[in-house]
């Protein structure tokens, strides 16, 4: 799991780079940007008494894409999502589709697929233990409305999205000096135990921002 996510991150970064390169060569008209700020809302993990606490945190998204036809844009998105104490930087490939006439309010839908990175989370390590976070799979379909500005090509946007983000939390204890190591594929080298919490955050996202 911890290796897979790294590969995922690398692939995503590579895609971002490709799209950026394509953009800079393309005409200005081709470029599409959606930048929004809002909040994530979800119901947290089940507590001991069976209840779930509500979770509401900040969410920022910036989508950069290229128009492939009149109503369709593909590109990538990144941003910042906070889930309780965990800060996540999402990287996703995305699509935006529009319905409506030019110069009028439009309905749009979006779909983002990628991964969230937990690079902002600190690794804690001492003589006996180490704990850290690793990012994971991210999918986020969205719906919204865009209200064009009177002048220029920009628009005010309101989005409603669903976001499913996986994050892994690891807590391991080191092999005590002197213990014989045994070869195995389950534990990373040097560890005698590892607890892996696979967290799945399901959130509704409300954002507002601009498109151009």
């Amino acid at each position, binding site marked *: 799991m911890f290796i897979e996510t790294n590969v995922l991150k690398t692939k995503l970064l590579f895609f971002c780079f490709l799209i950026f390169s394509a953009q800079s060569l393309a005409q200005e008209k081709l470029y599409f940007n959606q930048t929004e700020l809002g909040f994530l809302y*979800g119901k947290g993990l089940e507590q001991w008494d069976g209840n779930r606490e509500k979770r509401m945190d900040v969410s920022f998204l910036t989508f950069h894409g290229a128009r492939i036809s009149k109503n369709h844009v593909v590109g990538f998105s990144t941003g910042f999502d906070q889930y309780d104490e965990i800060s996540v930087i999402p990287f996703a490939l995305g699509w935006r589709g529009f*319905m409506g006439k030019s110069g009028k309010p439009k309905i749009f839908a979006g779909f983002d697929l990628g991964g969230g990175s937990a690079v902002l989370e600190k690794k804690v390590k001492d003589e006996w233990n180490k704990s850290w976070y690793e990012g994971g799979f991210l999918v986020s379909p969205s719906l919204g409305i865009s209200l064009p500005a009177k002048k220029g090509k920009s628009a005010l946007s309101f989005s409603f999205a669903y976001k499913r983000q996986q994050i892994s939390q690891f807590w391991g204890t080191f*092999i005590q000096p*002197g213990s*014989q190591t045994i070869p195995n594929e389950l*534990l990373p080298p040097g560890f005698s135990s*590892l*607890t892996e919490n696979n967290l799945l955050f399901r959130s509704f996202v409300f954002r507002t921002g601009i498109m151009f």
Partner: protein
Amino acid sequence: MKSIYTFKAFLFFLSIWVLSSCHDDITTTYTYRTMMPIYLEMSDVRARVFTTEPAKPLDNPGKIYIYENYLFINEPTKGIHILDNSNPSNPINLSFIPIEGNVDMAVNGSILYADNYVDLLAFDISKIGDIKLIKRVEDVFTHMYSHDTGEIITFQDTVISTENPTWQRESGWLMDARMSFSANFSAAAQSYGTGGSMARFTLSNQHLYAVDESTLRVFDVETPADPTFVKPIDLGWGIETIFPFQDKLFIGSNNGMHIYDASTPSSPTRMALYEHIQACDPVVVNEDYAFVTLRNGTSCWNGVNELQVIDIEDPYQPKLKKAYSMLNPHGLGLAGDFLYIAEGVHGLKSFNVSDVMSIDQNQLEFLTNLKSVDLIPGPNSLIVIGPDGVCQFDYSNPSKLKKLSCIKVSNPVNVY
């Protein structure tokens, strides 16, 4: 219009997905090392026929025994490797005897004794190419029996992954060093080394003595091919090593050194218990003194790191003669006036101990790049066991060790 339908369909699936799950979830996986109990029927174990197998690469070597020009190297719980060591610069791996549950051995004449879980086996090794099992003494290491039905319990160091939050209470035990030590008949045990100072099987006066963590077991081997079990002697907890010298047995435990009078070999009696603070303590002995290393380690967490010289002229009244501070001493070996100490990760030291009051001033060499846990001063070479494998040194000049060879092993002992 078509795009409207696509859009509606999309909305429909989106809403199903969204509404089906709208709260956070967690799944937890616990992966941990544990000593898994393994239950075996001794009748099955005994039914298996021993056949010598072709040479296998050395893996996780345990006890080493020198017999004529051969080296017998135990691989804990798996069996015994046989190497031709006529040329210590180039030992040749000859064959492997698979013996389940084996952790120790001793050679008496042309008979090899080896434990096989609860039984003691005797092999005729007079023809090294044709080793034969000639006797099995049943039910002697009885502490392994889980109950009376002939089922034994043994432990295997295993890594387990589970989603059960009560994993600590599952059938395994969380692995830590103490567990490893008390379950020392497992592969994880720190029962390496030996033939040297960390031995658990030893031969003296036509008797074979075997120590486990609390008991000394005596076998009469006057007729080497026909070992017979004499009796067990309770020693108290924490027994680690046994070293015979003349008519005495020096038994190292983690809180002291027992001295047993073995002049009646079938019935050793305790002469004294020289107590020290809790520490790991291999022992070697000469006419007048016992040399004991105490170290601070995993199984001996409260220890100090020192070499103690104990006056045993009166074995009923052992007295501390002098203590020398050390770095992290493990096994040790005495060859005449020369004492070699495996200093763990720090290296290997050699001393001239003819004057026990000034050992520190008579350090001959300190090989800091030679990490070691135990050593055996053999007739043709000094055998050093460490993370580099099983290495041999020419020590004909005691103050200047000369490396002859190193047998590479997978999973060498860990130095700490």
